[in-house]
C-alpha cells in the first residue's frame, strides 16, 4: 500500500506547535541592523527635494539610502515584459512617487524603533500631482499619466477572438449583457514580507534570507540589479508564514542589500502590517463587461468579454490578471466562440500582483453571475442551466476556444454531488416556508475550473517574442552515507506541508516510510536544485514539483537496484525496494539494507558495479509537457491542468438591517488524485474562507485622491471564526492523465467560486426585489439599499 493518498498528519507540525519554527523575523545574524522605510504620503507627486542628512546623525543609525543613492548604486528592476519605452524602476522612488506608501528612503539602525526615529528626520518636499484611481478613467486619452514618456497608462490592450463570434451572436435567440466589478483585496498572510541581506565585501557576494515565495525569478532580478553574477548570490527561505501569491517584492531585498553594503553589517527589514496593507500587493480590481449569446433552451453559443485590470503601479508583472484568465474565460462551459478584449492599465495605487487564484475569482464571479442571471431570465433552475452547458466528462480532454486544455473531470457530477450534500431540493422547500414567515433565505451556486501551472509563454501574446516559457521545477533526492534520505525542492513551502507530502512520494519510491525521509525546510540556492521558474506559485506543485521529486527518487531507486543487483548477484529487474531493503523479488531473505548500499556507494566504492559512479544522489527537473508555445491562431495554454469545484451556500438576510449571515457553505471539489487528503481538505477550507472574506468583508478602498481608507486590520476586515460557518467538504477524484501521479492543483478551488456563490445566494434571497449583484463586497449597507429601493 502506498503512502501517497494517506491522510498523514504533518511532519512540520511538531516544531510549529511548540514555538520552534524558524520564520524570517526569528533569524538573527551577528551584528544585524534593522531597516525602516520612509513612504510617500501622496498617491502621485514629484519629489522636488529630499534631504536625509539629519537621519544619518541619529545615534544608532548606520546607513541611509535614498532613491538617488539607489539610482547610483544599483540598476533598475527588470519587468517581466518590456514596455514600449523602457521605464526605469528602482528599488526606491526616484523623482516621482506613484502610490501612497511607495518607499522613498530607508534607514538601517540598531533597532526598528531607532530606524523609525531617524525617518522622522528625513525631509521630503513633494509637488503633488493629480491621482488617477479609476481604471476606466486611466484608460482615457486625456488621463493623468504615471509615465508621461509612455504616452499612455495602458500596458496592454488587445482583442483576441476565437471562433465565429459575430456569427454566433447573429444566430442567437438572445444576448445577456452585464457589467461586473471586483474590488481590490488580498490574502494578507499573517506573517508579513521581509528579508535579511548580508554583504561579503571581500567576495562582493550577497546572502539573502527571505520569505520570498518565488526565489528563482527573484535571484535573476537581484543579480541584474546589483550587477553581480548569480554565482555570488545565495538566497535562503526559512519557515514561511503563509504567502498566497502576495509574498514577493525584489525591491525590498535590494534595499536591504544596498543598506548592508553601506553599513558593512547585515540588515533586516520586515514589513509592518500597515506597510503590508498599503504597499505590498493587492489583487487587481477590475471591470468586466460580459455578453452571452444564447439559444432559447439556455445553450450558450458565444461569449464576448471586455476585461479591464487595474494594475496600480505594477511594472513587475503587468497583464498577468488578463493572461491567466484568458484560456479559461469560458469557465467549465462548452462555449464555441470567444472574444476577449484585454486592458491592463496603470493607476496611482498599490502594485497589484498574484493573489490566491489570481484573476480567476473575477472570471468566475463574472461568468457565474452571468449564468445565474441567464437562468433567471430563462426561468430555468440555475443548476439546470449549468448542466446544459458543461463540458462533458466524455469530452475530456477538451480544448477551450482560447486554447486551454481541460484534462479530466466530470463537472456535472461535481455539481450533482454538491447539490446532494447541500440537500438542494430540501432547502428550496425550507426556503419557501421561511419566506412565508418573512425570513429571507438565499441559496447560491457557483462552479469553477481551478487551473494549475503557469506557462509564461503566454506573454508572447503581448511582446511577440518568447523570453520565458513552460512550467517546471527541480528537486533532489539523496541517500546520505548513513542510509537516511534527504530531499530538497526548488519550491519553498508556505504552509502546504511539502515536508510531509514529498516524504510520502519519496518513501513510496524507495520502499521506506515518510519518517525515513527528511525534506529540507525551505530553499537554499547553494544546495537546493532550482530553475528560473522555481517557486511557490500558480498551484504548480502537482503539475511540476511532483514530477521533479519522482524523477530524482526514481533515479536513486534505480541506482540502489543496480548496486543491490551487483552485490546480490541478481538481475536488476529482479530487485525490489521494500521495508528499508533492496531484495530479490520472491526471495525475501536475499536482501540488503539501504544503509548497507549507501555504505557501498559512498565508502566502499570498489563494491560498486563496474562503471557506476560513487554516491547516491539524483537531481531532476521536470517540465510539464502540456506547456506549449503560443499557437499561430493565438491560442494559448496560459495554465496547464484543471481541477474543478462546485460551491453551494445558504445565507440569511436581516430584512431590516441588510446584515448577511452565512448559514452553510458546501464545497465539492475534484483535484484529481489527492496526495494527502488531510492537507487537501485543509487547503479547501482556508481557500474558501478567503473567498468568503472577499464576498462580504474585504476591500482596499481608495478615495479620489488615492489615499487608502482601509489600511489597518481595523478597517480592512478579515473573516474571524465568528464570520464563517464550518465549511462542508466533499470530493470526487478524476486523476489527470497529464501529471505524474494524476494529482492536480488544490488551494484555489475555494477562493475562486466562493464570492460568486455568495453573490448568487444574496441575490436569491432578494429574488422578490429583482436585485442584481454586480460588485463586491456585499456590505450590509449595500443590501439595505437593495431592500429599500
Amino acid at each position, binding site marked *: 500500500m502506498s503512502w501517497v493518498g494517506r491522510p498523514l498528519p504533518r511532519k512540520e507540525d511538531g516544531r510549529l506547535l511548540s514555538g520552534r519554527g524558524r520564520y524570517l523575523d526569528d533569524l538573527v545574524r551577528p551584528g544585524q541592523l534593522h531597516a525602516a522605510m520612509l*513612504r510617500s504620503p501622496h498617491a502621485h507627486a514629484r519629489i522636488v527635494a529630499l534631504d536625509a542628512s539629519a537621519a544619518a546623525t541619529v545615534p544608532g543609525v548606520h546607513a541611509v539610502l535614498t532613491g538617488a543613492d539607489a539610482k547610483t548604486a544599483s540598476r533598475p528592476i527588470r519587468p517581466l515584459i518590456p514596455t514600449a519605452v523602457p521605464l526605469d524602476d528602482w528599488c526606491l522612488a526616484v523623482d516621482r512617487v506613484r502610490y501612497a506608501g511607495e518607499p522613498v528612503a530607508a534607514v538601517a539602525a540598531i533597532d526598528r524603533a531607532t530606524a523609525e526615529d531617524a525617518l522622522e528626520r528625513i525631509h521630503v518636499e513633494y509637488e503633488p500631482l493629480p491621482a488617477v484611481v479609476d481604471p476606466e478613467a486611466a484608460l482615457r486619452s486625456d488621463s493623468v499619466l504615471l509615465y508621461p514618456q509612455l504616452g499612455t497608462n495602458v500596458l496592454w490592450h488587445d482583442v483576441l477572438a476565437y471562433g465565429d463570434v459575430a456569427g454566433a451572436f447573429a444566430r442567437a435567440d438572445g444576448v445577456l449583457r452585464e457589467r461586473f466589478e471586483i474590488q481590490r483585496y488580498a490574502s494578507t498572510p499573517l506573517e508579513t514580507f521581509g528579508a535579511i541581506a548580508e554583504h561579503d565585501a571581500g567576495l562582493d557576494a550577497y546572502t539573502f534570507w527571505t520569505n520570498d515565495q518565488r526565489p528563482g525569478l527573484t535571484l535573476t532580478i537581484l543579480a541584474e540589479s546589483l550587477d553581480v553574477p548569480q554565482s555570488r548570490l545565495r538566497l535562503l527561505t526559512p519557515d514561511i508564514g503563509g504567502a498566497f501569491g502576495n509574498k514577493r517584492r525584489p525591491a525590498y531585498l535590494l534595499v536591504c542589500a544596498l543598506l548592508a553594503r553601506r553599513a558593512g553589517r547585515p540588515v533586516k527589514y520586515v514589513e*509592518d*502590517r500597515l506597510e503590508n496593507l498599503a504597499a505590498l500587493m493587492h489583487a487587481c480590481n477590475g471591470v468586466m463587461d460580459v455578453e452571452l449569446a444564447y439559444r432559447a433552451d439556455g445553450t450558450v453559443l458565444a461569449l464576448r468579454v471586455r476585461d479591464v485590470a487595474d494594475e496600480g503601479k505594477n511594472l513587475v508583472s503587468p497583464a498577468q490578471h488578463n493572461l491567466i484568465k484568458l484560456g479559461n474565460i469560458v469557465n467549465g462551459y462548452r462555449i464555441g466562440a470567444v472574444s476577449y478584449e484585454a486592458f491592463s492599465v496603470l493607476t496611482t495605487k498599490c502594485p497589484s500582483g498574484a493573489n490566491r487564484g489570481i484573476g480567476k475569482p473575477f472570471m468566475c464571479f463574472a461568468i457565474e453571475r452571468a449564468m445565474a442571471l441567464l437562468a433567471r431570465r430563462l426561468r430555468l433552475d440555475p443548476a439546470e442551466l449549468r448542466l446544459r452547458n458543461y463540458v462533458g466528462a466524455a469530452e475530456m480532454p477538451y480544448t477551450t476556444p482560447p486554447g486551454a486544455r481541460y484534462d479530466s473531470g466530470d463537472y456535472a457530477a461535481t455539481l450533482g454531488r454538491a447539490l446532494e450534500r447541500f440537500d438542494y431540493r430540501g432547502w428550496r422547500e425550507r426556503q419557501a416556508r421561511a419566506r412565508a414567515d418573512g425570513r429571507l433565505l438565499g441559496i447560491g451556486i457557483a462552479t469553477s475550473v481551478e487551473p494549475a501551472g503557469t506557462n509564461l509563454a503566454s506573454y508572447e501574446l503581448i511582446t511577440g517574442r518568447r523570453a520565458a516559457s513552460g512550467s517546471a521545477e527541480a528537486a533532489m533526492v539523496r541517500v546520505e552515507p548513513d542510509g537516511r534520505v534527504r530531499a530538497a525542492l526548488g519550491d519553498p513551502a508556505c504552509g502546504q506541508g511539502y515536508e510531509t507530502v514529498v516524504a510520502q512520494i519519496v518513501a513510496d519510491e524507495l520502499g521506506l516510510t515518510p519518517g525515513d525521509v527528511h525534506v529540507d525546510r525551505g530553499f537554499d540556492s547553494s544546495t537546493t536544485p532550482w530553475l528560473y521558474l522555481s517557486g511557490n506559485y500558480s498551484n504548480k506543485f502537482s503539475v511540476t514539483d511532483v514530477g521533479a521529486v519522482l524523477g530524482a527518487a526514481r533515479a536513486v531507486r534505480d541506482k540502489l537496484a543496480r548496486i543491490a543487483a551487483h552485490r546480490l548477484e541478481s538481475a536488476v529487474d529482479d530487485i525490489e525496494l521494500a521495508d528499508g531493503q533492496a531484495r530479490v523479488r520472491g526471495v525475501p531473505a536475499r536482501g540488503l539494507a539501504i544503509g548497507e548500499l549507501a555504505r557501498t556507494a559512498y565508502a566502499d566504492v570498489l563494491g560498486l558495479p563496474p562503471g557506476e559512479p560513487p554516491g547516491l544522489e539524483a537531481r531532476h527537473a521536470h517540465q510539464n509537457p502540456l506547456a506549449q508555445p503560443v499557437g499561430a491562431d493565438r491560442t494559448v495554454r496560459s495554465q496547464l491542468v484543471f481541477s474543478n469545484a462546485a460551491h453551494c451556500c445558504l445565507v440569511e438576510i436581516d430584512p431590516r438591517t441588510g446584515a448577511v449571515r452565512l448559514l452553510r457553505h458546501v464545497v465539492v471539489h475534484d483535484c484529481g488524485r489527492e496526495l494527502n487528503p488531510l492537507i487537501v481538505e485543509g487547503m479547501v477550507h482556508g481557500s474558501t474562507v478567503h473567498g468568503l472574506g472577499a464576498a462580504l468583508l474585504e476591500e482596499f478602498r481608495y478615495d479620489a485622491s488615492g489615499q487608502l481608507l482601509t489600511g489597518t486590520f*481595523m478597517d480592512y476586515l478579515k473573516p474571524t471564526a*465568528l464570520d464563517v460557518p464550518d465549511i462542508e467538504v466533499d470530493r470526487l477524484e478524476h486523476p489527470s492523465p497529464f501529471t505524474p501521479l494524476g494529482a492536480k492543483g488544490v488551494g484555489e478551488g475555494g477562493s475562486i467560486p466562493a464570492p460568486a456563490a455568495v453573490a448568487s445566494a444574496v441575490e436569491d434571497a432578494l429574488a422578490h426585489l429583482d436585485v442584481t449583484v454586480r460588485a463586491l463586497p456585499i456590505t450590509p449597507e449595500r443590501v439595505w439599499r437593495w431592500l429599500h429601493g
Partner: protein
Amino acid sequence: MRGRDDSAAGVESGPVKPAPFDYVRARTLDDALAALDADSKILAGGQSLVPLLNMRLVRPTRVVDINAVPGLAGVRARPDGVLEIGALTRHTDLLASTLVRERLPLVAAATAHVGHRAIRNRGTIGGSLAHADPAAELPAALLALEAGVVISARGGERRVALDDFFVGALTTLLGAGEILRRVEIPDPRDAAWGFAEIARRPGDFAIAGVAVALHGARGQSARARLVAFGVGDRPVRLRAAEAALSRTAPTRELAARAAAQAAADCRPVDDVHASAEYRAHLVEVLTERAVADAIGRLLA
C-alpha cells in the same frame, strides 16, 4: 485595538514602534497625580492607547502606569443602592462579577460586545470612558443607567454626570492632571434593559447601537433613557424617543413609536463602513429592537 480611529487611516509610513517616552509606575494615586502633566498619558488597560503609541499617533513625553495603584479595581454595592465600579476594573472581571450580572445586566450585555477575550482581559471600564470612542458600548450603556464618574485631581475629587462628561469625539471633561477613579451607578434595581448593535464583525466597534434603560412597572408610567452610539461624536441621548416612552404605561406597541423618533437626535457621519443615512436607519431598527426587549423584560 478595535474599531475605528479615523486618524489611523492613511498612515503610509507605518511606524509601529512608539516614539520615546518616560515611564512612571505609580504605586499610589498621589504618585500618579504627581506624575501627570499636560504631555503625559495614563496607562490603564492600554488596549486603545498602545496602538496609538505604536503608530506614533500620540506622542506623550511620559506614560503614567496606574495598574499598580491599589483600590482602583472592583465592583461594590453601597448601602444606598449605588453601585461603584473602580476605573481599573477589567472587562473580563465585569462579566465575571455576580453584582454586575444580577444588578447591571445592561452593562454585562454591553461588555460582552467589547472586542475579543484577550482585549477584555486587559481593557478597563475607566479606560473605555476616558477614551470616549463614540462607537463604544460601555459609555452608552452607563449613560443610559444615569451613571456618573468620580475624578481625582491633586486638589481633590469631583463627581461628573456622564451626561456632561463626553464633550466630543475622543474627548471628555477629564483634565490633564486628572484621573478617572470610579464609576457610580444609581440603584438600577427597577430598570429593565435592552441592548442592540450592528457591527461589521462581532467584536468590532458598532456601526450603530442602542442601549435602553426603562424604569417602571406593569401598568405604571415609565421613565426611559435611550442612548445611541456610533451615530454622533459621542454617545447620544435619544431624547425624542425617550419622550415617546415616558409618562405612559409601557406596551409592546410603544417600541415602534419610540423607534420612529430615534433618528431625530442623532448626528451620524459617513465613514468607510457605513453612510450617515444607513446609520440613521439602523438607529431606528435597533431602537425598536432594544426597546421591545426592555418592555418585554418589564412586562415579564
